[in-house]
């Protein structure tokens, strides 16, 4: 019985891993192909099925005038916008989450849960709904096509996530911890940053990871709200999706765009393995 379970477990886990990896392998293979190897028939393995070419990868650093996409600058733009917006969202979101977790708020029929839901509900809006108003909003305050403008918009995208994760997290941190800090002579701000924050690192890591992911993968706002000055990575990569799509460079750039986040995956896994991700304070 136990053996059967072990067998099933390993099979399932292995199958799922293959499913996860399959599109990446396909993209990796495609990134070395040319027009004919993509369009004449299905090919898999370089040198056996097709003659590999480095064109797809070279394109990434070539200038558009030579048929390249030059993703270097967008890469750094993306990193800047994602990180800045994530940090601001986490700071503001963590403060708000702390308030919502620890204190009671009453205003008419509004209670803590309603305020939390208000934060989270910002994610219900499909990006398409907000894109036009945001366009006009940013153009009014003169932040269209700027990194700052994107950061402002991304804060709206990311803060709800930070609030959601952190409220949940703080609810699991005993509030006696902050009370002790207060009794020991900390005012509420000192209690927050001297005692609560240092013990919230696992929660902050999860929240940070989600913020970074959701910031990094956004396409729509970056697409509508920028013109020529600022280009973000997804927009740049999607711009390869032309009528005659260069599948090879698209695949290569897809792989490159995933790379930094795989580091995030390792960091998160490290915290998971240390067993303190959800930060039980026992």
């Amino acid at each position, binding site marked *: 019985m136990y053996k059967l*379970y072990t067998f099933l*477990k390993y099979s*399932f886990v292995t199958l*799922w891993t293959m*499913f*996860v990896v399959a*599109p990446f392998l*396909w*993209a990796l293979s495609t990134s070395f192909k040319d027009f004919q190897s*993509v*369009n004449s028939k*299905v090919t898999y393995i370089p040198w056996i099925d097709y003659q590999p070419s480095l064109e797809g990868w070279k394109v990434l650093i070539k200038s558009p005038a030579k048929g390249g996409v030059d993703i270097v600058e967008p890469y750094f733009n993306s990193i800047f916008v994602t990180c800045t917006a994530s940090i601001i969202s986490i700071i503001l979101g963590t*403060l*708000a989450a702390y*308030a*919502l977790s*620890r204190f009671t*708020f009453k205003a008419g029929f509004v209670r803590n849960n309603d*305020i939390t*839901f208000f*934060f*989270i509900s*910002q*994610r*219900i*809006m*499909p*990006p*398409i*709904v907000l*894109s*036009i*108003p945001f366009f006009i*909003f940013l153009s009014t305050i003169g932040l269209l096509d700027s990194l700052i403008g994107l950061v402002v918009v991304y*804060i*709206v995208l990311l803060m709800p996530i930070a*609030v*959601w994760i952190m409220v*949940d997290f703080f609810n699991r941190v005993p509030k006696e911890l902050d009370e002790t800090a*207060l009794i020991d002579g900390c005012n509420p*701000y000192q209690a*927050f940053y001297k005692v609560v924050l240092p013990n919230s690192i696992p929660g902050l890591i*999860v929240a940070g990871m989600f913020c970074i992911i959701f910031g990094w*993968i956004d*396409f729509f706002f970056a697409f509508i709200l920028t013109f020529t000055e600022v280009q973000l990575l*997804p927009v740049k*990569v999607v711009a390869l999706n032309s009528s005659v799509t260069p599948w090879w460079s*698209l695949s290569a*750039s*897809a792989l490159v765009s*995933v790379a930094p*986040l*795989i580091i995030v*995956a390792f960091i*998160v*896994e490290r915290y*998971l393995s240390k*067993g303190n991700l*959800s930060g*039980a304070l026992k």
Partner: protein
Amino acid sequence: MNFKHKFVFLFPGLFVLIGILIFPIIFTIRLSFSGWNSYTPEMNFIGITNYIRLFTDDPRFWESFFRLSFLSVTTVVLQYIIGFSLALMVWRDIKFKRFFRVMFLIPMMTTPVIMTVIWRTFFHESLGPVNDLLGTFGIGPKWLSDPATAKITVIIVEVWQWTPFMFLLLLAGLLSLPKEPFLAAAIDGASAFRKFVFVTFPLMAPISIGAIIIRLIEASKIMDTVFVLTSGGPGTATETSSFYIYIKGLREFQMGYAATLSFTYLVIMIISLTIIAKVLTKLMIKE
């Protein structure tokens, strides 16, 4: 505890959010009462004409909404089941634990709009690997060109992309579970199955509800996948609400009407998510 300091914590975030959103929301509501489109880009006032059109003469929106409900509920349920199973499997003793955990996380890190382009070539019925390999067994599903299978393909891609989300939250939840109930169950000699049903699952209920609600919110925005894979086709077989709003708004440029759709959609979503959250809480947390 109750201090006036509590506002200092809450207000920066709340006001920044409101500050950034107040204009877009008011603008959207106002826009929904206008006839703004490509040829008359004006904030004129046409009363509830748009709303009348939506409620009396736009079956396509409602179809897309029910399709969306079907797709998002199906994908989220699948993600939950698979994510939970995976989390349980790499929770404790398994070889290469860390490798599997990292692997399971990766799909979430990819930009959907880019990955879906890859998926499209992957499911290409004559130039993609799936049907080429399946062809050796003599089958070749019409992944993208049949109304029923196209939905399945969309679901597959969504499940691939977002199961890690569930996996991560549930695994983190599992790892933070207190040990005592398990010891007690072990002493009682409960079978693995009973342990899961009576110990693990109830302990995981709050986390599960949170994860499901958030995923439902995210899944309801499903658009990139549909856009790239099928453009809502064949026919309207995979058209979802947000994709329909996108078509009306940014393709046909009926901004006023798109705002009407958006606002209605938002109201429906908030109401239904509140109900779903209540129902889930009742179902999963007994007492």
